[in-house]
């Protein structure tokens, strides 16, 4: 994050920087939120709904979200479908190929926790959050395309808390629920 990091540090350290920083953050978070290009990591059933979300009836493009198959160009990886142990390294690698800032949406219960494939199976990873930092979990098996769109709209709320200065969080816009933010220390 060459340019951004330098800019963020400068603004954070400089006098009066915080005001500028805040406005820059606000503008940037707004743009990032409105231009979430998706890396469709569709592996199973949810991939169908992922496709449907981009097509005529649901039209993801309205939100500025378009699918790109090249991880380098994308901002958010939508993991849609079951992740097996054989697939997991691929996903991890693809995630690493994405450029910062990047987010992950776990779409559907297979990606969230293994879902129906939680028990009694030998080859399924129980949730993509075992290998990637997931920002938004969408329940459904598969979720409706609207659920995914809702997930993306919620992801904007997370993006709105972020700052280009390292270690900063924008306040006020939105807070995570207490229990989840504190977590149980796992």
């Amino acid at each position, binding site marked *: 994050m060459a340019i951004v990091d330098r800019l963020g540090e400068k603004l954070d350290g400089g006098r009066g920087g915080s005001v500028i920083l805040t406005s820059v953050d606000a503008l940037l978070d707004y743009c990032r939120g409105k231009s979430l290009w998706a890396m469709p*990591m*569709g*592996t*199973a*059933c949810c*991939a*169908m*709904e992922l*496709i*449907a979300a981009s*097509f*005529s*009836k649901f039209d993801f493009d309205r939100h500025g979200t378009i699918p790109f*198959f*090249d*991880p380098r160009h994308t901002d958010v990886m939508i993991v849609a*479908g*079951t992740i*097996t142990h*054989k*697939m997991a*390294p*691929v*996903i991890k*690698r*693809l995630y690493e*190929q994405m450029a910062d800032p990047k987010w992950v949406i776990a779409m559907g219960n297979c990606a969230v926790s293994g879902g*129906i*494939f939680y*028990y*009694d*199976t*030998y*080859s*399924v990873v129980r949730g993509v959050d075992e290998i990637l930092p997931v920002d938004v979990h969408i329940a459904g*098996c*598969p979720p*409706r395309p609207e659920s995914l769109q809702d997930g993306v709209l919620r992801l904007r709320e997370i993006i709105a808390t972020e700052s280009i200065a390292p270690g900063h969080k924008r306040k006020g816009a939105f807070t995570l629920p207490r229990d989840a933010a504190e977590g149980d220390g796992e």
Partner: protein
Amino acid sequence: MGLDVESRRVVEVEEGGTVEELVVNVGPSHPSTHGVCRVIAHLDSEIVTKAEPVIGHLHRGIEKMAENRTYLQVVPLTDRLDYVGSMYANWAYCRAVERLASIRVPDRAEYLRVIVCEMQRIASHMMAIGSAGADSGAVTQFVYAFDQRERIIEHFEELCGARLTYNYVRPGGVSHDLPEGWIESLLAFCESHRKGLDMMDKLFFGNVIARGRMKGVGVLSAEEAVAWGASGPVARGSGVEWDLRKHDPYSVYPRLDFEVPIGSNGDCYDRGRVRLLECYESCSIIEQAIAQLEPGAIMADGVPRLLAPLPGDAYDHIESARGSLGVYLVSDGSPRPYRMKVRSPAFCNLALLPMLAEGHLLSDLVVILGSLDPVFGEVDR
């Protein structure tokens, strides 16, 4: 993008000396693999010398899970096998269970099954035709096809409350009866769908560029199709007249009148267009089935929550959108299947890929893969 593969490989050629062979790794997450298939393509310039599919990236162990679920609990699992055509796996599985447990399905339920499965065939073929377009760059064709599919899915949602994983066909019958007004809107859809098919036929299958991409590509002869166990549109595209609905009739298909479209060249074009023509036939099957539909029970009487068939094994197969989908069930008398095996048509069809792709260009590889229409939930299971 994908995994590390030694991307250049030194091979010896006949004339002596060596050339560097480019190894391109297509998948597992790749726009054209229709899922998570990885094809390791060895290229000589752009010509594929060897294409090796690596599957199993979606191997979820459903067959093992089925051994740990009751007969009813397996139905949702079968939804996730062929996620483009969930109704088929539902039905094939339920047929096997019914055969094991000697359950007689009411007539109305059989008709409803036929109706939903023909709708599913349209939906699935729309996906196949559409993604054939996307593979060759015609994204708009994909959108139009998907639009048609979306309308079927709306009907399914009305019927059973889910868009993809229907869990509709159950051992003994079906889970819901038709909602009000559903039949009328389905008939209206059939009418408009024919127009949509005409449009797609002109837009894609009539297009000179699309023909150029598909004609003569990935030719499969009838003998090979039989020997390799190909079924469904892949076999029929090669001129093999093999449709279980006609040639091993099940359910109420013998009472319905329909044609089996076949191709004569066995290339990607024939495989694709066979699917398109089957959609016309499906429309007419739906209309006939609706005309013959009579009120009655939709579930066999008194199917308890826990089925425990007598020990034994049973196999039953139906013609899914991808070919003959069979389910082999072994019971040991307990409420859970002892073994479930899904004979996946997509798996058998995909095995043809190395043979078909050899000698073609890399661009053809994705078209051939698309014309086999694999769904990896079913291939890998």
